[in-house]
Structure formats: C-alpha cells, structure tokens
C-alpha cells in the first residue's frame, strides 16, 4: 500500500464528517455539506487513480468536479425560491 492509497483511506473520515454535516441544520446548511463532499470525493478519486497507477481514472475526478458544480448550482437555485 503506497502513500496515495493510505491518504485516500484516511480521507474517507473527512467524508464521514461531511455526512454528519448533511444530517444537521436546515436545507442550506446541508447543501454546504454536500458541496464539500463533492470537492473531497474529487480529490479522493485523484488520489485513488494515482495510487493504482491508472491515469485514465483522472477523467472520473474531472467529470465529478464538473457535475458537482452543476448540481450545486441547481440545488442553490431551487432552495433559493422554490423548496
């Protein structure tokens, strides 16, 4: 097990903290937890790709970064007025 895989295993605890944040507070406070989780998982996928030596898996992290951006914007827009 190299340092990338060890780091990504430890980084899972950060996801647990994001999950706790998603279960507390009102809808907007939960949204912040979701947005943070999107960034953390993006970094986690990069570390896993590097740890496993698969450069092609970087595309997953790039796709997640783009999609979590769009998802966060849509959630913010809907929570602003309609939900």
């Amino acid at each position, binding site marked *: 097990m190299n340092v990338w895989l060890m*780091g990504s295993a430890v980084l899972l605890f950060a996801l647990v903290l994001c999950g706790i944040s998603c279960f507390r507070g009102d809808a907007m406070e939960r949204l912040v937890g979701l947005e943070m989780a999107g*960034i953390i998982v993006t*970094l986690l996928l990069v*570390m896993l790709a*590097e740890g496993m030596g698969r*450069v092609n898996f*970087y595309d997953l992290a*790039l796709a997640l970064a783009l999609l979590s951006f769009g998802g966060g*914007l849509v959630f*913010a827009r809907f929570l602003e007025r309609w939900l």
Partner: protein
Amino acid sequence: MSAATLAVEVLVWVVVITCLLCCLGLVAMKDFFERLHYMATVSTVATMALLAAVVIEQGWGQAAIKMSLIVVVLLLMNAVLTHATARAARVRDLGHWQPAEGEKIAGLEQIGGGGHKDK
C-alpha cells in the same frame, strides 16, 4: 528515500490533513456563512498541494494536465458556488439579497435606500 518521494509524501498528507481540518470546521461551526468559508481552503490549498504531488510523481505528462484541469475547475467552481449558495441563503431568509434598509455592511457607510423586494 529520495527527496522527490519525501516531497510527495509530505504533500499528500498536507492534502489529507487540510481536508480533515476543514471538514471538522464545517461540523463545528454554528453559523451557515462561517461554514461556507471552509470550502475555499480545500479547493485552493489541498488541490494545489495535490497538483504539486502529481507533478513531482509523474512529471508534466497526461496526469499533470488532467490534474491541472481539475484544479482550474475546482477553483472556478468554488468561487461561483460559494457566491450562489450564500446568495440563495440570503434570498431564502429575506426574500431578496440586497442590503436591507438600515443594514450596516463592514467597510461601507450605512445604506439608506434598501434593496428591492421583488422576487
């Protein structure tokens, strides 16, 4: 252990510790607007450290270019998303996002006109 390996290890743990501390801050803070700030550290410090680690490990190849793209997306995303989320929270609370009548803003004089109330 070579200097490059040591640098990669240090940078990876910088990423991990930064993410853990910011997530702890996210859980510990009570105020919504205080929580928003913790996304900035992750998407700047942690992503830059990870880019540096990837470049040291792989050199300027395909991995570094893809990681650079991810860094650009995360930097732009964080700025836009933080603004959109904060604005959404304010509109949700007040019905509009502009300064309310008599509201004091740090660094500005008291605003007398008030914001428009239309949705």
